[in-house]
């Protein structure tokens, strides 16, 4: 689920932070920059792991801050394709089953990746797996909100960065209403295999 990613960056330390130790100030700055944010094609950044190299700091004309080149490693949430993960059902709608891990919520299991013979129950707002046992009896297995679910990651999507021009902000605000929200990082899951799906389905197998 998690990987270590190596980054290189130039960290700016503002003068009022000079009283702090340099590595402490850099740690704070890097966490402020990256923690809980999606980095394009990297994943959801969690927390700084370690700083591997600090080069000498320099100052530039017209700026009281110090600038320091650093190499560091960050803990990043980026499951590999085909990884099996356990999450909880966040909601169900006609688009599929939405799964959450608490810290990461943009996981969807599309109808074609659900069990075969799954239908969406409009009244209950839940997906139902119509499981036919060996004896020919069909049991209806509901996928209720909050249930732990085991799935396999089958696809990942990164949304392209939107560069917002401040002067065009007004236009952007208007556009926002028309363009649907697209999460910057999204995972697609698959539960169409033996052993995948709600944990309770397999508890007694």
């Amino acid at each position, binding site marked *: 689920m*998690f990987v270590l990613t190596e980054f290189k960056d130039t960290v700016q330390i503002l003068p009022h932070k000079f009283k702090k130790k340099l590595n402490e100030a850099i740690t704070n700055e890097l966490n402020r920059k990256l923690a809980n*944010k999606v980095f394009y094609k990297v994943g959801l950044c969690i927390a700084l792991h370690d700083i591997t190299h600090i080069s000498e700091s320099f100052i530039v004309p017209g700026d009281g801050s110090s600038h320091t080149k650093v190499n560091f490693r960050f803990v990043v949430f980026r499951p590999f394709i085909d990884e099996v993960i*356990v999450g909880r059902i966040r909601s169900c709608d006609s688009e599929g089953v939405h799964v959450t891990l608490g810290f990461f919520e943009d996981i969807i299991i599309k109808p074609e990746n659900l069990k075969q013979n799954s239908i969406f129950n409009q009244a209950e707002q839940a997906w139902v797996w119509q499981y036919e046992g060996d004896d020919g009896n069909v049991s209806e297995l509901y996928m209720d909100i909050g249930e732990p679910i085991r799935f396999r990651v089958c696809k990942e999507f990164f949304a392209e960065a939107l560069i917002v021009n401040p002067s065009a902000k007004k236009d952007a605000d208007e556009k926002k209403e028309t363009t649907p929200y697209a999460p910057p990082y999204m995972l697609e899951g698959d539960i169409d295999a033996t052993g995948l799906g709600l944990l309770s389905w397999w508890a007694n197998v």
Partner: protein
Amino acid sequence: MIIFQIVAKMEVVNDRAAFLTNYEVYDVLNSIKASKTKSKGENQLATITYSTIKYLEDTPCKDQTADKITGFMTAVESFKLSKSEKLTILNLFPTTVLELHLMIEDCEERFNEEEEEKLLMIIAEHLETVKEEPTSD
């Protein structure tokens, strides 16, 4: 959870320098939480640390230790599992053959039933938590 893209000159040197087990992440986050050097502008770190720890507390990594993991890694060497297979086993702690098949590619072809049972035993032996039940008398 606030997520947005960073438009900056930050450079990625290696996006998968290493895989981390849930235990390692849990360990790092707990030490961040314990250090309590909270400063302004770090509430995003606090948020993600809190919610990730909350998720990991529900997973088997909560009771793992570095020693247990090392012991497990040495014990399964002969099975020639891939890195990601060992990682998934550590993260999910399978207890049934069914779960094992999900985590190991072509499990049936690579191992016979006896070996599967043996692997499950090794997993249980190294990763199972001994729940100390309070003795009533």
